[in-house]
C-alpha cells in the first residue's frame, strides 16, 4: 500500500485566517492601541480609573519617587509632584484636558474655517478675495507672541487658550476647503442641482460638504497632536492653562526645574505627549493614505 504524506498547512496560513489577518493588518494597530490606552480610556473613564484626586495633595508626600525606585510606593505608582499630588491620576485627568482642549479648538476652528472656505470657493469674487486675505493675515500672525500678549491682557484660562488656537487653526481649514470646493463646483451634479432650484446653502451643505469631509477628517486628526504640543509650549511660557489644571503641558513646564532630582514629574507627562502625538501623526498619515492621497502637502 502506498503511503501519502499529507502536508498540512499551519493554522495561520489557512485561507480563512490569512484573509482575516490581512484585513486586520490594514488597520494601523499600533497607533490605535496607544491612543486607546493613553488618550481615549483615560479621557472617558478618568474618575473610575484614576487612583487619587488629581487636585488634592499633601505636602508631606511631595516628590515621592515612582513605585519601582527606592522611596516609592505602589500607592503612588508614578510618584508625586511638587504639591504631593499623585502623578498617575493627574496624567489620567490630563488626557481628558488635552482631548477637551483639542476637540473644542479643532471643532470651533474647523467649523469656522469650513464655512468660510465653502463660501469662499463657492461664491468666488469679492467674498473669495476678502476671505483669502483674512486667511493670509491669520497665517502670518506669530502665534506664540500673540498668545503671550493675549494672556498678559486677559490672564490664562481655558477660553484664552481656545481663542488663540482657533485663531491659529481656522485658516488652514478655510484654505483646504476652498481648494476642494473650487475643484468640485464645476461638476455636473452641482450644475444639475442649481438648475433644479436648490438654494446656495443647500448646495453647500448637501452637495459640497460631504465631498470635503474626508480631507477634513485627515486634517483634524493631524492637528490634534499639533494642538497638544502648542498647548504645552504655551504652558511653558506661562501663557497656557491656569494652575492647578492637570494638563500635560503644564505638568512638564512645572517639573522642568526638577529634571535632575525629581525627573519623573516632567518625564512621564512628556512621554505621554510624545507617544500620543506620535500615534496621532501615524494615524493621520494612514488616514491620509487611505482617504485622500492628494493631501500630501497638508
Amino acid at each position, binding site marked *: 500500500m502506498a503511503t501519502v504524506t499529507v502536508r498540512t498547512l499551519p493554522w495561520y496560513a489557512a485561507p480563512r485566517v490569512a484573509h482575516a489577518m490581512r484585513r486586520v493588518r490594514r488597520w494601523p494597530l499600533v497607533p490605535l492601541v496607544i491612543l486607546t490606552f493613553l488618550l481615549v480610556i483615560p479621557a472617558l473613564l478618568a474618575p473610575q480609573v484614576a487612583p487619587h484626586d488629581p487636585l488634592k495633595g499633601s505636602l508631606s508626600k511631595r516628590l515621592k519617587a515612582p513605585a519601582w525606585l527606592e522611596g516609592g510606593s505602589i500607592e503612588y505608582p508614578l510618584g508625586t509632584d511638587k504639591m504631593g499630588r499623585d502623578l498617575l491620576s493627574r496624567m489620567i485627568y490630563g488626557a481628558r484636558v488635552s482631548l477637551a482642549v483639542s476637540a473644542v479648538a479643532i471643532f470651533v476652528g474647523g467649523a469656522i474655517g469650513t464655512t468660510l472656505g465653502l463660501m469662499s470657493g463657492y461664491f468666488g469674487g469679492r467674498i473669495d478675495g476678502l476671505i483669502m486675505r483674512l486667511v493670509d493675515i491669520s497665517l502670518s*500672525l*506669530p502665534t506664540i*507672541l*500673540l498668545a503671550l500678549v493675549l494672556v498678559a491682557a486677559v490672564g490664562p484660562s481655558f477660553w484664552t487658550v481656545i481663542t488663540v488656537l482657533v485663531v491659529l487653526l481656522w485658516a488652514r481649514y478655510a484654505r483646504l476647503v476652498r481648494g476642494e470646493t473650487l475643484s468640485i463646483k464645476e461638476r455636473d451634479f452641482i450644475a444639475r442641482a442649481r438648475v433644479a432650484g436648490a438654494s446656495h446653502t443647500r448646495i453647500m451643505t448637501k452637495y459640497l460638504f460631504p465631498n470635503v469631509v474626508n480631507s477634513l477628517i485627515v486634517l483634524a486628526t493631524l492637528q490634534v497632536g499639533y494642538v497638544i504640543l502648542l498647548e504645552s509650549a504655551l504652558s511653558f*511660557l506661562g501663557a497656557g492653562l491656569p494652575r492647578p489644571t492637570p494638563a500635560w503641558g503644564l505638568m512638564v513646564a512645572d517639573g522642568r526645574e526638577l529634571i535632575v532630582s525629581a525627573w519623573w514629574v516632567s518625564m512621564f507627562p512628556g512621554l505621554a505627549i510624545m507617544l500620543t502625538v506620535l500615534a496621532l501623526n501615524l494615524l493621520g498619515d494612514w488616514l491620509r493614505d487611505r482617504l485622500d492621497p492628494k493631501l500630501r502637502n497638508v
Partner: protein
Amino acid sequence: MQRYIARRFLQSLLAIWVMSLVVFTLARFSGNPLDVMLPLEATAEDYDRVSKHWGLDKPLYTQYGIFLTRALQGDFGMSWKWPGRSAMDLVWERLPATLQLAGFALLVSVVIALPIGVLSAVKKGTPWDTAAKIIALMGQSLPGFWLGIVLMWIFAVHLGWFPTSGRGGLQYMILPAITLGWFQVAAIMRLVRSSMLEVLDSEFVKLTRIKGLAEWKVVWKHCLRNAAIAPITFFAIIAGVLMTGSVVTESVFSWPGTGLLVIDAVRARDFQVVQAVVIVFAGIFILTNLLVDILYAYLDPRIRLR
C-alpha cells in the same frame, strides 16, 4: 505677471497693517506697564509723572496715531524696560542671533532629513522605511522645551560635550539647533521621499539603470538633483515657522535672540519693544510668503494667468 505681483504686494502691506493694529490693541489691554516698572513705594504722583513722560495719559487713538506715523518712518519708540535704547535698535541687535540659529537649525534638519528621506524612498515598504518615518515623526511629537532641557542635561552637564547656554562659537549652537530643527525633519523628509519616489520611477532613471550605472550613482547623482527642487522652495516657508518656534528654544538655552527679547518685553509690559518685534517678525514672514508666491507664479504659468 506684473499685476499679480502688485496685487500680492498690496495684500502683504495690508496684512502688516492689520498686524500692527492687533498687536497695538492687545498690548495695551495687557495692563498698565507702570505696574511692572515702578517700585512698590511709588506714590500716585509718581504714576502720574511717569505716565505723562511716556505719553500714556493720551487717549488710545491718539497713541495709535503717534505710533503709526513714527512707525512708518522706522521709529518704534524708545524701550521702557531698557531706557536709552530705541525699540528698533534692540530688535536689530538681536535679530542676527535668531536668524543665525534658525539658519543653522534648518541646516541641521536638512542634514538629518535628507538621508532619511532618501533611505525611506529607496527602501520603500521595508522596516527601514518605517524606522525612518518614526524617527522623523518623533521630532514632531516632542515638546520643544522638554527636548531642549533633556539634551542640555545629557550632553552639556553629564557628558560635557557642549556648553549649556549662551552664544559663542559653533558648539553653542548645536543643542539649540537640534531642539529647534528636529520639528521640521518630518516635513522635509516627507517631501524628499515623495519627490524621490516620483523621480525613481521615471523613464530617464530606468534608462540610466539600463545603461548599467551603479545603483548609488543612480540615486545620488541623477535622482537627487531633480528631487531637490521642491524642498528648496519649501525652505522659505519653514523659515518663518522656525523664527517663531525659536521663542521657546531661546528661552531654554538663553540664546540672546529676538525670541528672548520679546519674552522679556512682554513680561515687563514694554509695549514699544513688543510691537517692534511682532511687526518685524510678521513682516519677514509675510515678505517670505510673497517671494515664494512670486517664485511659484514664475514656475507655474497657470497662476500667472489667473
